[in-house]
């Protein structure tokens, strides 16, 4: 049997090396582009997903989020719970917060952001929001009468620039008026403005817990505790550990909390990606098919003669499969080179998404999948046309 493959390979190699180089080059180029297309978009999407996930962890939720027990609105004895959580192995830090609605007015413009009350010294150990202050400073534990607002909330004087209700260009040092949920109104000096790239965070306002508690007349309470764990990725296990250590409040992972938002984005990306993959593969099938088909039709007579001198049909079919595989291998190789060049370029000048630069993430499984599907594509595209052509009566093939 192996002799057949040898002869088929021999024939294929000669037909390729002594055949039309232009057509070969063109086909290989197209397959290379298809290969790049199969990998490039998904790897960008993977990069975006990773960026979004990291942002969710860094600026919104940490690794775990603890919320009040079911049917309760607040976590009472938040400080005690915080200390308990901090002692659990695997926990790095935690930050009790109180997040609630508010209305902020500045120069006659008003917005209703989420007002988050934090203890800055705890918050900085869990989130990285404090590193994203673009003007002024972040809060400190002792701050009273000071507020830090997100850039989206601060807005700009030119109303057309803002896509959402904003304070129309509140700046550091200016005074804003905040109305709390209990109806109390206070004046706050803007201490800092932050821009994290995470739209939720950038529309929030931050004050200290001390300040919040004095206004609201509460103490030692929170409605969420964000937890940072030593490793990212084992949140589900950590969640169970927390419960085993007797945390009776609801424990969520950042993935749970961001599910709706992120999953709908990832879901849409997956659909786009699926369509693009299918289209690419169909293009690849059609191209290789056409090339091999034209080739076999063009050599119809020759194929008839080969059969006439006793060369079995299967050898001829195999030789066309080999040619298709060769095109596929060259195309894939050229595609790899092209992809590496693109990746290199993108590392040097990355795509910037809200929240930071996105590095394409090249997953081996994805590459193997692309190589595998191109392989199958070329098997089909090599087999079908040569099968069709060799099925013809020898005599009618020879007559041309």
């Amino acid at each position, binding site marked *: 049997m192996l*002799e*057949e493959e*040898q*002869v088929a390979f*021999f*024939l294929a190699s*000669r*037909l390729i*090396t*002594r*055949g039309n180089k232009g057509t070969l080059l063109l086909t290989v180029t197209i397959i290379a582009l298809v290969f790049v297309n199969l990998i490039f978009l998904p790897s960008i999407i993977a990069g975006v997903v990773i960026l979004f996930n990291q942002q969710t962890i860094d600026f919104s939720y940490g690794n775990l989020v603890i919320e009040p027990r079911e049917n309760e609105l607040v976590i009472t004895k938040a400080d005690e719970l915080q200390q308990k959580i901090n002692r659990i192995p695997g926990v790095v830090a935690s930050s009790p917060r109180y997040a609630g609605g508010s209305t902020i007015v500045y120069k006659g413009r008003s917005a209703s952001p989420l007002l988050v009350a934090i203890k800055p010294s705890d918050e900085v150990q869990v989130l990285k929001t404090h590193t994203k202050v673009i003007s002024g400073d972040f809060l400190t534990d002792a701050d009273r009468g000071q507020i830090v607002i997100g850039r989206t909330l601060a807005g700009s004087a030119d109303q057309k620039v803002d896509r959402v209700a904003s304070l129309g260009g509140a700046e550091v040092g200016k005074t804003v008026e905040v109305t709390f949920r209990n109806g109390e109104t206070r004046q706050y000096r803007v201490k800092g403005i932050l821009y994290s790239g995470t739209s939720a965070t950038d529309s929030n306002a931050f004050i200290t817990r001390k300040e919040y508690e004095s206004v609201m007349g509460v103490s030692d309470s929170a409605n969420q505790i964000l937890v940072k764990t030593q490793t990212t990725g084992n949140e589900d296990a950590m969640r169970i550990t927390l419960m085993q250590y007797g945390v009776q409040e609801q424990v969520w992972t950042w993935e749970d909390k961001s599910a709706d938002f992120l999953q709908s984005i990832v879901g849409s990306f997956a659909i786009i990606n699926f369509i693009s993959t299918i289209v690419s593969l169909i293009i690849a099938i059609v191209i290789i098919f056409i090339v091999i088909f034209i080739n076999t039709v063009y050599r119809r*007579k*020759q194929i008839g*003669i*080969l*059969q*006439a*001198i*006793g*060369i*079995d*049909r299967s*050898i001829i079919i195999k030789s066309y499969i080999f040619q298709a595989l060769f095109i596929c291998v060259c195309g894939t190789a050229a595609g790899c080179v092209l992809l590496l060049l693109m990746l290199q370029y993108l590392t040097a000048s990355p795509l910037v998404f809200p929240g930071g630069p996105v590095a394409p993430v090249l997953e081996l499984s994805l590459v193997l999948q692309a190589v595998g599907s191109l392989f199958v594509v070329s098997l089909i595209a090599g087999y079908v046309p040569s099968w069709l052509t060799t099925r013809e009566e*020898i*005599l009618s093939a*020879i007559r041309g």
Partner: protein
Amino acid sequence: MIAGNSLFKIYGKGSVEVRALDGVDITISRGEFVGITGASGSGKSTLLHLLGLLDRPTSGSLRIDGVEVSALSEKERTAFRLNRLGYVFQDYALVPELTAEENIFLPSKVRGMTSKECTRACRDILSLVGLKDRVSFLPGEMSGGEQQRVAIARALINNPALILADEPCANLDTKNSIVILELLKKLNHDLRQTVVMVSHEEWHQRYFDRVVTLQDGKIISDIGT
């Protein structure tokens, strides 16, 4: 060697029926050099196609080299062509991407000969057909006569029981035709190779041992010269 009995090849049906072969009985012995001649459309190619297993008779029996070939499957017929027949076409029919040598050893490679054996056999045959110095020429780099000699070498490589040639000189001038005819004659004489050749040129007949003449699908004369 060949025993064909009441061979019919009928194309079409009813009023448009064409009897390309109309009851041909033919026996050819080993070592004969047989010429088949006749007017255009008399059925010469049709007969050769049957002998070459490129086509099946509508009816009739055909034994070649002791095998009842009409009973063979398609795959067996392909193997039979490879192992026992050498077919030479009017237009040489070489693979343009293969060199002279590669064209010749292709059929022997299929039989599983090693590259070394192939190369040896090729060189021998190429010197037999007088093309020692054309080993690595592509068909496009050779004259028609040279290409036809390569085609004959290709037909010879597997040591066939029978060589069939359908107007091998039709595209050649007289000088080259003579070279081809002498080559076939030499193979027939020196190697005791059975050769059946179709030709409608009167002057070719002096090379044949025997001339079979067809007319409207029937043998009208069968003369040993």
